[in-house]
């Protein structure tokens, strides 16, 4: 059980860290001037040349690999509801790492989403 808890914690941390790195990188790149295919492709080209993109991708790959490991150990009805905690961890990361402003309304929404995902996906 301790093994599952440790890998679950690593799974959540890897996923959130990957997403946070990706978000940081995309903010550095800046939004596309217009949402047209050409401008979006130019934006993607700039994005893949930033270091943060390549920090985020392996972390997300690790997150996916750890999900596969967890699913091979525990039923999906336990793994997916528990992974809903990533909404809370990700929001904490956004607040303290990316310095986003998370007010009470947003926290309330995040907690409801977390609880809702856990309830909807539990076996």
């Amino acid at each position, binding site marked *: 059980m301790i093994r599952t808890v440790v890998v679950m914690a690593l799974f959540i941390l890897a996923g959130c860290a990957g*997403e946070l790195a990706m978000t940081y990188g*995309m903010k550095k790149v800046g939004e596309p001037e217009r949402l047209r295919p050409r401008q979006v492709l*130019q934006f993607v080209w700039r994005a893949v040349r930033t270091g943060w993109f390549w920090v985020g991708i392996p972390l997300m790959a690790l997150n996916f690999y750890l999900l596969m490991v967890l699913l091979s150990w525990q039923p999906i009805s336990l793994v997916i509801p528990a992974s809903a905690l990533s909404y809370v961890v990700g929001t904490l990361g956004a607040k303290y790492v990316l*310095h986003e402003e998370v007010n009470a*309304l947003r926290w309330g929404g*995040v907690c*409801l*989403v*977390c609880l809702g995902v856990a309830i909807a996906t*539990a076996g």
Partner: protein
Amino acid sequence: MGRESRLRIKTLVMVLAMVACGTVGDLLLKRGMMQIGAVQLTPAGISTAFHASLTNYTVWIAIFFLIGFMLTNMTVLSWADYSFVMPASAIGYAVIAFVGVTVLGETLTPRRWFGVALICVGVIFVGQTKPRTTEMAASAESVQ
């Protein structure tokens, strides 16, 4: 229309596109992998499944949609808060439930309906907040 409203609409449209691409991609990938059959976790089994997936049209269409998911995700995160996009994209759970009930004729237990309702209320709460609370990102042109 104010700048704040335009930003909110642009963000919500992009999140919906992201959810649509992700959901369709996942469903098609599941269908494609079911066509291939259970993957044997041996080097030969993985190799066989890999070659089978390369020649499966459903898997390729799924990959197309999942690339769309990645692009929309990257694009929306270039201007919107992660703490806005991440919970807002949970609306995908409600979309899947709705598609399951209306298109596939599945039935949902009251507990699952309750979970989906909580997700929807949570997304509405998050949707009321500002999509971007950090400093204005640098424009694309200035980075070049």
